[in-house]
């Protein structure tokens, strides 16, 4: 037995050693030259955009973070791309298997989930495995209001009550657990979502396994539907970026890195952790309401199942935790891969591939793809001048 383990250990370490060397060679022989070429090409663009970025840095930089010319350009192009997707996606979509607008709408919802998870878990290091309980609380509240109270209630009423419900569930989870140390917080969030899942499947008054089909989708028009999802997503991204670049973000990261030092600074860590959980619950609730409007169905496997919570984490990890915009990018990458690039494969095969990517990022690009790209873009000028 022991010799088997030893053998396995040796095999594993040689393989990872080999992998490390291969990765090293890859980096030196391929990535660096490619990077240098790209830098030479991008440096002039950076210089051209620099004055615009400087104007931004002077006015809004202190509130949303400073950017280099290139970084500013990438953000501007991305936002413009998202805002005009309703027009260009139907033309580009067929090249990627069709239905691109639907995928982008779905990606917007997942971007909201991943960013919300990030402001709480990614920033404070108190990793939640149960965030789908929050969006689930919002979704189920909407469904229950429509089924049991009044099917004609306006979305503004059901939506507000649902977001409030997400906040209440968030507080119910956060209040007793955020003082706990080590893995207990994570375990309790994990158990909370398992409990919620069983609750929804066990009682037919909560819809059981089929859930509720009564809620209406917002619209059947794909273009309109996309904007219903993308505009709130962009506003949430703006709000969370503003929060993350303020003192709050600085304190939350300090909690992750060294909680006793935060106390020694005269700051109450529990208060800030609680606040980050509330700040996370509200957009989770909004995302839940949007998901109802997207699917028109509220059931355990769309809303609550723990896989959803894990998927949010995966998206945040791929994009780059504790950056807000990284998880946003991660959501679009994840969903486009899942529903467009890999659309020809069965669901298990697609997920197998997606989880391999998550593993790859965790091993080779721990800061996340979009965070890595972002820092690379920021460094372009520094090296070319």
């Amino acid at each position, binding site marked *: 037995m022991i010799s088997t383990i030893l053998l396995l250990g040796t095999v594993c370490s040689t393989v990872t050693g080999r992998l490390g060397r291969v990765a090293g060679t890859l980096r030196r022989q391929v990535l660096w030259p490619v990077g240098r070429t790209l830098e030479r090409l991008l440096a002039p663009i950076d210089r051209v955009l620099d004055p615009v970025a400087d104007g931004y840095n002077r006015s809004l930089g202190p509130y949303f973070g400073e950017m280099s010319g290139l970084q500013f350009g990438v953000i501007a192009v991305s936002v413009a791309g998202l805002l005009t997707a309703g027009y260009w996606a139907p033309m580009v979509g067929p090249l990627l298997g069709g239905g691109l607008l639907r995928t982008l709408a779905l990606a917007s919802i997942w971007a909201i989930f991943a960013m919300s998870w990030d402001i709480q878990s990614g920033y404070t290091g108190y990793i939640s495995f149960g965030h789908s309980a929050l969006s689930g609380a919002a979704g189920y509240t909407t469904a229950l209001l429509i089924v049991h109270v009044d099917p004609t209630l306006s979305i503004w009423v059901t939506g507000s009550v649902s977001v409030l419900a997400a906040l209440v569930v968030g507080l119910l989870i956060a209040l007793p657990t955020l003082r706990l140390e080590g893995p207990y917080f994570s375990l309790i969030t994990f158990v909370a979502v398992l409990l919620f899942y069983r609750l929804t499947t066990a009682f037919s008054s909560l819809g059981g396994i089929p859930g509720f089909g009564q809620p209406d989708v917002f619209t059947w028009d794909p273009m309109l539907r996309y904007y219903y999802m993308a505009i709130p997503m962009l506003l949430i991204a703006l709000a969370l970026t503003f929060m993350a670049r303020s003192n709050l973000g*600085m304190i939350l990261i300090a909690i992750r890195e060294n909680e006793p030092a935060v*106390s020694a600074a005269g700051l109450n860590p529990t208060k800030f952790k609680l606040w980050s959980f509330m700040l996370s619950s509200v957009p989770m609730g909004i995302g839940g309401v949007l998901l109802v409007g997207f699917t028109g169905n509220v059931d355990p496997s769309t809303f609550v199942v723990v896989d959803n919570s894990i998927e949010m984490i995966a998206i945040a990890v791929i994009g780059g935790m504790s950056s807000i915009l990284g998880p946003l990018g991660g959501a679009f990458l994840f969903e486009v891969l899942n529903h467009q690039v890999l659309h020809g494969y069965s669901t298990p095969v697609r997920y197998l591939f997606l989880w391999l990517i998550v593993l790859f990022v965790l091993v080779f690009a721990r800061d996340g793809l979009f965070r890595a790209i972002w820092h690379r873009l920021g460094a372009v000028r520094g090296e070319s001048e």
Partner: protein
Amino acid sequence: MSVLEVDNLTKTFGGLVAVDDFSLEVDEGEIVGLIGPNGSGKSTVFNCIMGLYDVTDGEIRFNGVDITSDSTHQIVAKGLSRVSQESNPIDLYSVSENIRLFTLPNSIRSLHGGASDEEIREYAARIDIEDKLHEMPSELPHADVRRLEIAKSLATEPELMLLDEPFAGMNQAEIGELAAQIERFREDGMTMVVVDHNMGGLMELVDRVVVLNNGDFLAAGTPAEIAADDAVQEAYLAGEGLQ
């Protein structure tokens, strides 16, 4: 008037009595030395004062107010601050950001409050690291990391500062320099308790020395009296020397 009063403090860890019925008073403007061989309970006394440990028995008052069961951040807000024995800067933050963290208001509404760059510079200048503000803590030599810890503590604007082994790991020149800076803090109106395991850096600096041994009060007096005290000599004979 006593700024800090520690009355009959006892702290046990399971069966181990780390601090046993220990009392200490510190007057305004004083620098008190707290010495004792390694493991005698000095850091535990500080941890109890700062609310990191729940005390087993006894009471701690700051400016006459009972702070025994306050949390650390409340105690810091009242004007007490501690420079711990282990440096623990946040490695992701520059020296200046590490100091800034200690100036932030304890309020979720204060999104952009805290010290200005100029104020941060002043805190750093009081301990002579103002030219290191943009460096990362991992790039600093040991003595500067220790100075950063003191700058962070200063940034909370304390009335009373507890310094746990500030001279540890410093060479003779650095010890002299730091002692002079601590002396300057006193001239600016700060009260201090300085822990060390021997009298090395304290001899010239402190007004009074209190000696702990195995969690018990052993002796108190001027540095000269303590250096000549037989019981203190004996307590130190087992381990390292007193000087």
